[in-house]
């Protein structure tokens, strides 16, 4: 189950341990290696409904391990256009592949300018070191 700790350079990061893969006016969201490692094996994903509008820093869903519940914090404002149903069925996919198959939702950005406020991989790694 344990995968090596990584923070891909092509992603942007939120201090609450969420990542965003920006693709024009859309973004794919997930949780970082650090977040999945802290939680342990995930056993539940409570997704938002498609069409839900979420704001930057808002909770848009929940993930749970056996012991703990964690809010999913949106790094960007947008409208949910797709939920990764595979994670609803097999939440442990997030532990196995947090940046690939373990993505959580796709959103259409409503405030694309917010992208500049996110951390790059180096800054996020530094934040982890300081914790």
């Amino acid at each position, binding site marked *: 189950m344990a995968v090596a700790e990584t923070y891909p350079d092509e992603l942007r990061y939120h201090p609450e341990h969420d990542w965003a893969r920006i693709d024009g006016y859309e973004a794919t969201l997930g949780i970082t290696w650090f977040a999945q490692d802290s939680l*342990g094996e995930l*056993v*539940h994903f409570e997704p938002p409904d498609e069409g839900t509008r979420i704001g930057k820093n808002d909770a848009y869903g929940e993930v749970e391990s*056996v*012991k703990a*519940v964690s809010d999913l914090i949106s790094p960007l404002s947008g409208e949910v256009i797709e939920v990764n149903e595979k994670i609803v069925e097999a939440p442990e996919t997030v532990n196995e592949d947090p940046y690939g198959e373990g993505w959580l939702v796709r959103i259409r950005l409503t405030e694309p300018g917010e992208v500049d406020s996110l951390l790059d991989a180096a800054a996020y790694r530094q934040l982890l070191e300081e914790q």
Partner: protein
Amino acid sequence: MQTLLRTPLYDRHVALGARMVPFAGWEMPVQYEGVIPEHRAVRSDCGVFDVSHMGELEVEGPQAGALLQSLLSNDLDRLEDGRAQYTLLTNESGGIVDDLIVYRLTPFRYLLIVNAANRETDFDWLKEREIRGSDVRDVSDDYGLLAVQGPHSLERLTLPDAPAFSFAEGEIDGISCMINRTGYTGETGVELMVSAEDAGELWDRVLDRGAKPAGLGARDTLRLEVCYPLHGNDIGPETDAISAGLGWVCALDTRFTGAEELRRIKADGPSRRLVAFVMEERAIPRQGMTVEGGGEVTSGTHSPMLDRGIGLAYVPAALSDPGHELTIDVRGRPRRARVVPKPIYKREETPSGSG
């Protein structure tokens, strides 16, 4: 800030990479590799838990049995030497001060293994009620306690079958210990009580024999699948034994603290009952969530064996029969659950010597 206590195995847990958490005043391993693989190891093979944080009290003297019979709910007179019994320390209103296992060492000497969080409460409770010819001592610091649990635990330790709730002096790889056929997982297994100084070496030998280290996380999911109550969650001084479904460990024809009140509750029928439930929708129930119609979840988790949310809840008696549908408020979302018979998880084949 209070300093957390450490068991004799603390350094070994850290060396194994355990995640250490505060629990009942102790710094304990919640998991090593992960709750789910540890849980599965106990259900399919053999796991070992450090439960040295639990308290051990000794009651000795010609009146030791009389003292305990007057304070504990189960019928102590039915115990022989070398046998143990699950029982409750009750208060005047029939509430549960603690649940514990009492071991009859001799007719004049008993051992009580009690919850870590209640060690001092229990000691004080017994000490204040001591009678002439009985002496209560807290011997917790003298011992380590390892729970070795799982269908292959006996063969891994090269131990013969023995009846549940029996115990005897013995040794594992030359290390003397008391071998108790007890546990908190619903699996065959033993709890090994060992001198504190030998605890580390016994732990090493048990790991060498193939037991997988398991933490408090798996201990909780395992006990909840088989509906063993956790004191402080599901039972406590404010909850009575009858409502909690523990009438079977209350010898209501004997005299013990609160027996009269428990007889009354039993005769009237309790207004609410502690039931087991399984989620019918995807959601994980947690302690403190409310049940529609006036109830509350006291323990909840994800069951690794059922791959679903499970829990225990107090519900009005009218909703307490297996089959009743419950609606649980999961952080503002109503989620359906169903009352099921206890235990929630049951192995298919019937093994021998389980406890």
